[in-house]
């Protein structure tokens, strides 16, 4: 069968169906067009993309098919989607290799597709881990703790379990300012989109008055805990890249 160009709308459900399709056909596409990648704005027909959403049953079947390959592979598919990189053809190629050789294939970095996939997974995992630490929450007048983030990748779904465990029954929300969506906690420790929560997201919900006092205490702590005899700003910047500084309360961010 001749490899061809496939297309999908960029959603996770569609990607899962696309990958499962490739696995069942035993063939990786020559290339994949994705509606939400910038290059599609030039030549693609965006209107026709947004209408497609695979039925839930199809997604369930796709998830089962991918999990059958390997759980590690399934995790890689999810992370690859979060990376927003053009890795669809690589995902299918790695999946097929994995079907042939078992999980050993996931250790074969000499396979270019796996090498690219692993690099993307590493980046997403790193970004998730960094934001678990660098997200800063502030208390809003509706009693909710809110963090406004600018993640490099689409990592909110990967961050959510960490903060669900952390906040327990307390109300919180995390907002991706770059992609314009957020997740808010509701009862029973689950999350919904911010729009579904109150219809207008966080508009009009201002920080609580006590916030200023807490921020001042934290900034004072941050300043005092430094040993000036060991000052090493290069190391600080290496471990805490500048692109996160805008959201860090201790470094003067007023975003929260």
């Amino acid at each position, binding site marked *: 069968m001749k490899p061809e160009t496939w297309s999908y709308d960029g*959603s*996770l459900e569609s990607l899962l169906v696309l990958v499962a399709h490739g696995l069942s056909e035993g063939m990786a596409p020559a290339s994949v067009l994705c509606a939400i990648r910038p290059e599609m704005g030039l030549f693609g027909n965006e209107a026709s993309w947004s209408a497609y959403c695979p039925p839930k049953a199809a997604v369930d079947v796709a*998830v089962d098919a991918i*999990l059958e390959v390997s*759980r*590690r592979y*399934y*995790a890689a598919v*999810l*992370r690859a989607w979060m990376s927003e990189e053009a890795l669809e053809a690589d995902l299918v190629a790695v999946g097929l290799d994995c079907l042939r*050789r078992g999980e*050993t*294939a996931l*250790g*074969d*970095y*000499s*396979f*270019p597709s796996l*090498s690219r996939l692993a690099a993307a997974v590493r980046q997403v995992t790193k970004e998730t*881990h960094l934001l*678990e*630490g*660098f997200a*800063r*929450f502030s*208390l809003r007048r509706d009693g909710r*703790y809110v*963090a406004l983030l600018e993640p490099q990748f689409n990592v909110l*779904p*990967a961050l959510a*379990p960490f903060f669900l*465990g*952390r*906040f*327990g029954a307390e109300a919180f929300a995390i907002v991706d300012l770059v992609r314009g969506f957020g997740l808010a906690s509701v009862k029973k420790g*689950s*999350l919904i989109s911010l729009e579904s929560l109150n219809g207008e997201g966080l508009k009009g919900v201002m920080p609580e008055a006590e916030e200023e006092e*807490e921020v*001042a*205490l*934290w900034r*004072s*702590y*941050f300043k*005092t*805990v*430094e*040993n*000036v*005899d*060991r000052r*090493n*700003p290069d*190391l*600080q910047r290496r*471990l*805490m890249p500048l692109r996160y500084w805008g959201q860090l*309360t*201790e470094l003067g961010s007023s975003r929260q």
Partner: protein
Amino acid sequence: MELGKKLEILSAGARYDVSCASSGSDRRAPPGGMGRNLPAGVCHSFAGDGRCISLLKLLFSNACRYDCAYCMNRASNDIPRASFSTQELTKLTLSFYRRNYIEGLFLSSGVFADPDIVMERLVEVARSLREDAGFGGYIHLKAIPGCGDRLLKKAGRYADRLSANIELPTAASLSKLAPDKSGKEILSSMRFIGESCAEAREDSRRIAATPDFAPAGQSTQLIVGATPDDDMALLGLAQSLYRRYRLRRVYYSAYLPVGLDARLPTGPPPLLREHRLYQADWLLRFYGFKAEELLNPALPNLCEEIDPKSAWALAHPEFFPVELSRASMEELMRVPGLGATSARRIVSARRAAKLKPELLPRLGLVMKRARYFLSLYGRALETSIAWEGLRPLLMDRPPASRTPLLGKAAWSGPSGKPMALAVQSQLEFVFP
């Protein structure tokens, strides 16, 4: 005294304690509570000195009746003194935790009264956080030397990690600079904590409801450069503590001058020496090295110019080159420039396919140093440099701002849950 001022004084007093890790514990909050530990720990910020801020590191009180020469909080030092109340500490910890500033609390204290009384106060803060506030975040408590086993046992129930700082590696150094402290008491606390951790682990295998005892184990800290003790004394002690008391970590802290005392060196902290000790400590813990392999009476200090693994490699030409196609993980990890991840990738890649030189960069291996010590199917990867010429190529360039090397200027003497499962559960809320 207002809370802000107390925070300033008591965080300044605690900043010389290096430990700030929040790793090793997988605790969850009880129903209705808040907080969750990740076994890998989380760094929430990095101070201007480049050190991780993961825990709210505070003293309960900086009043101290001991007069340890190297300590800022010593009795004879004329500094403002303050103490927190349990409520203040609990409120501050929860408030910072909710804002994701910290992963939990690190609580130490000056010995302002009988060790039992001080330890009781620390335990009460931990109890209040766990039982009154339902806090499931990380708690690191300092074990006050000389306190009773009953209090240590109680502390271990609430804390994720306990630590007793030994500070100086020899009894002679301790009696010279910290005459009120007893090395025996510190080691006795360590032994008790180590045994209690082991007991709790053993019991939990048989009875699931066994209460935790410091699930993240115990750590200690050694001051580097405050006394003429050499690296062999420091590393030898660390190795013995890892073996005998199963410590999770030994921290090394370059001595920072905190006053004028003829018994102590002056000048900048020996940061490079501290760095080399951490490298050597890493080799002891994860790379299967022994202290005796890295240092000996003829060579009691780590080399300033090159890292300990490279120094060992240069001294053992008979071990190299290591054959990439069949070397064990342990052999690969002894190659300068190769870490555990690289070694794992090599083993995994050669299981999947035949190794070729051009594929090595794709494995993400950093070959800058390693290539001088490796061969593939009997052919050395790098043949242009003779063994004798390797040393300059393996040298680190010390950062200009980080001097001196061994603090010699001041001394005349010797110097989980699978990721797929975790993410799968997210699909429900990403696409409800």
